[in-house]
């Protein structure tokens, strides 16, 4: 039956081609070739999946109909963030990321994919300027895997096994990191100051030692707090010969100190916030960067696009092919890296975003996010029984709202908000029970004053 199947994705499936090509090969049936699979292992049954191919129109209708059942964050009024952010996505991103050549290229070389590697070099360069770091890798899977890679790198560079991590990090991200660290490393958690949410320096000093490979900080942290002591934390780590790793949100770096400003050794983060779609949390961009020292660069477990010369004086080759020895394509198990196909298309999109915004736009973006979040905190804090933010510290675009004094649970309040078409902040009372009934609210440049006012109004009603 499949002998006659003509399929729109298979050019040679038009009538007569199969016989002609099998004749060239010298077999009467493709089954002769499949005899390479031992008889007992060849599957000849029917599977429980649709048998016949489906037309483009029918596939489109069916899949769209299923998706119609979703209600998107855009159809609600959403204050969800916690690692997936609703930022404005400039029209050019869609145009560039949709270009067939970028969409469908894969490996390529400097002579065939000059433009793609140039775009990747520019992404690395712009990210480097945003971070003030000299070496930026092409891409890893997402922010969580980038953190894991950064921790592994630090241990390889220093030859030490202990990693010092703050208490207040995203528990899901921490679980990813733990997988990257097991069974190689020990993790020590450092306390935060109860009032401000920033790292407790006395506790940090007590825990950092000559055994410490790196101190990892997040700026802003999972709960939106700006780590204002990054420079001091950096000095404490370096005094013991440990490295400083900073996990950052790139949209904050127009206003917040970039990692390079506090002598950070390895920076990591997630680039989805750079105008890339939320896409239900999928298709993200892991950022990894380091100082331009051979010991760091050699440990970067990913592709990097650099400029090499060619045989023509003055000509640049944008290339990643010289550098395979650091990853599994070059050295298999010795590399111990696990990043293969990662997120180049996302990096190209993030590059378009940074280029469009430029230095002024990145500053405005950072400032607007802080302002809108600041406005929301101030007005939420006026509600009876509501405290926002929980921590007395600068925040970027996320903050904890404490509802404990209302006598209501976050789950209960979020349910009431949902009835009014509002997605309240992420309920983190389960992750951090010590803070009571708290929710993590996110306000980006896309939330208007009227929308924030509406949230406050509805909360006043439902509380």
């Amino acid at each position, binding site marked *: 039956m499949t002998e006659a199947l003509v399929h729109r994705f298979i050019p040679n499936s038009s009538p007569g081609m199969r016989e002609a090509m099998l004749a060239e090969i010298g077999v009467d049936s493709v089954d002769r070739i499949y005899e390479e699979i031992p008889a007992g292992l060849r599957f000849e049954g029917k599977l429980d999946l649709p048998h016949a191919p489906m037309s483009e129109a029918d596939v489109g209708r069916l899949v769209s109909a299923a998706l119609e059942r979703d209600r998107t964050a855009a159809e609600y009024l959403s204050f969800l963030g916690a690692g997936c952010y609703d930022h404005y996505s400039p029209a*050019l991103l869609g145009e560039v990321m949709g270009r067939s050549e970028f969409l469908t290229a894969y490996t390529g070389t400097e002579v065939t994919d000059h433009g793609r590697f140039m775009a990747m070099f520019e992404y690395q360069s712009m990210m480097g300027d945003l971070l003030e770091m000299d070496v930026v890798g092409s891409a890893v899977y997402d922010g969580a895997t980038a953190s894991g890679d950064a921790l592994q790198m630090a241990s390889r560079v220093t030859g030490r096994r202990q990693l010092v991590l703050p208490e207040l990090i995203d528990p899901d991200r921490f679980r990813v990191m733990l997988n990257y660290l097991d069974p190689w490393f020990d993790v020590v958690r450092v306390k935060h100051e109860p009032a401000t949410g920033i790292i407790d320096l006395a506790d940090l000093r007590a825990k950092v030692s000559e055994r410490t490979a790196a101190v990892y900080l997040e700026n802003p942290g999972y709960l939106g707090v700006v780590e204002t002591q990054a420079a001091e934390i950096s000095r404490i780590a370096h005094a013991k010969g440990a490295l400083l790793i900073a996990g950052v949100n790139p949209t904050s770096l127009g206003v917040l100190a970039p990692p390079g400003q506090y002598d950070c050794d390895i920076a990591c983060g997630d680039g989805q916030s750079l105008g890339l779609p939320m896409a239900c949390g999928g298709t993200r961009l892991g950022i990894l960067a380091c100082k*331009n020292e051979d010991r760091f660069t050699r440990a970067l477990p990913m592709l990097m696009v650099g400029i090499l010369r060619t045989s023509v004086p003055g000509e640049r080759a944008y290339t990643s092919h010289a550098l395979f020895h650091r990853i599994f394509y070059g050295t298999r198990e010795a590399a111990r890296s696990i990043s293969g196909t990662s997120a180049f298309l996302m990096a190209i999109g993030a590059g378009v975003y940074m280029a469009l915004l430029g230095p002024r736009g990145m500053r405005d973006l950072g400032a607007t996010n802080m302002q*809108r979040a600041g406005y929301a905190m101030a007005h939420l804090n006026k509600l009876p029984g509501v405290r926002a933010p929980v921590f007395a510290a600068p925040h970027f675009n996320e903050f904890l709202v404490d509802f404990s004094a209302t006598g209501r649970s976050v789950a209960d309040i979020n349910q009431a908000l949902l009835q009014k078409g509002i997605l309240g902040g992420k309920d983190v009372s389960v992750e951090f029970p010590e803070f009571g009934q708290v929710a993590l609210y996110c306000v980006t440049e896309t939330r208007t004053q009227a929308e924030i006012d509406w949230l406050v109004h509805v909360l006043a009603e439902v509380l």
Partner: protein
Amino acid sequence: MVKTFEPGVEAERMTRYGEIDTGYRAPRWHETTLYEQSRPGTVNQILPSIEPELAAETTGIVDTLPAAARRAVPPALPEVSEPEILRHYIRCSQMTFGYDSGSNVGVGTCTMKYSPRLNEEIARLPKLRDLHPLEPEAALQGVLELMYGLRNWLRELAGMDEVTFQPRGGGHGAYTDALMIRAHHRARNQNHRDEMITCAVSHPCNPAAAAAAGFRVISLYPDPVTGEIGIEALRAAISPRTAGIMVTAPYDTGVFDSKIAEYARLVHDAGGVVSLDQANFNGVMTRMRAGDLGADMVHFNLHKTFSTPHGSYGPGACAVAVKEGFVPFLPVPLLRFDGESYHLDHDLPLSIGKVGTFLGMVPNVVKAYAYVLAMGQDGLRAASEWAVINNNYLIRKLLEVRGLAISYPNRRKLQEARFTLRKLFEDTGVTTTDFNYRLADFGVATYFESHVPRIIDEPVTPEPTEGQSKRDLDRFIAAFHQISAEAYREPEIVKTAPHRCIVRREVHDYRSLTEVPFTWRVWRRMHGDGQPG
């Protein structure tokens, strides 16, 4: 100063071989980086404006940051207008050889196939694009239904019981497998099992993933005649310390190891776990099932076999399918269906936990769903058959090329094959890399040579897939004939190739990576602004 044209460079790059007709000349712009096009003060108005009242209330909020926490110097990003930025990226895309750009037969192990554009439209639908992963499950029923649908189909195709979409790519899938194998042995107090067996012609992500999870790797080499590991070699490698085996089927050589079910039995008898890498699934869909072979777990690359597409090197996506006994170890959340609605189950006490954020590469899972729907079981079977027919046609024709031979010649190959240009190299001094650079002059994608270790000299590993026409294959074959003839007649043509591409080949004369600029800020320090070095 912005330099738009460099006559000296242009004259230097032309060689007398550039006029040999290859039927193609790469599009080449004299395109500088955005940094070299920057004009200070250029601003694009992109972001939402801020309301006067909100601005008044919050002005100066940035100044409340302590100085040390504030950015001291604005980022040195390029300042370029919107139309110029678009034109720059359009030119960059034109200087990129995508799957759709021309004949794309050569990239073995990568499964370059057509990516349906409907699926790109679907991924751009607001109903998918604007979903937040932390929305209530009730708001995500549509997308979860599609993911669960693909889960059901992959169970069937794999002959397995459960599926996760948490891994982000093939290497990450192998890593997920390695973590589950580790968790399995720990749960049974078998911590001494610290050795993972793999094959040297399995994808390098298998040994790398095993090593990353803490295993010592034992690599078995294929028999030079059969291309298989062989029972005796495996027996010798198995010990009480064996944690499992991680192998690719078919291998990257196109050989299907006929003993694979026996390997699975041997490893199981020794208390180990069997993980199958089906990055090369494209030639065997509906023809074999990993579960029937005795595998405990298998991974599929959705950006390869299921067309999602390759995205310049990601975002990819991976599905790992497992047998019942390994369900407890799967990463969370797990998709569940109770007959009425879909749920995200985070409550797996023995789970390896998280390997990445949120729900996985959701848009690509939806694209893969749409792909399977468009193909159906019959279409998938036909696609595999055509991947195999196209490959065997290619083999038949390429073996007529002077200086080229195939590895394991007594074996029929499935979706790809590894050739060797050893004879051509011995006769002419032309290497496979020279040959490949010359191929780029012909408007066909350059081929994949080989993963390491290179047990075949001067390797060539094409994989035509079902997505290429006979005309595409013939174009590739004709280019091979012409290049071989050039190598025997005037090897300089090939050794100095390419001649009709965007740039000449790179020169590796750096001593340390610190001499290679990976960002413009380093380039500028080395060379000054916009001046080619």
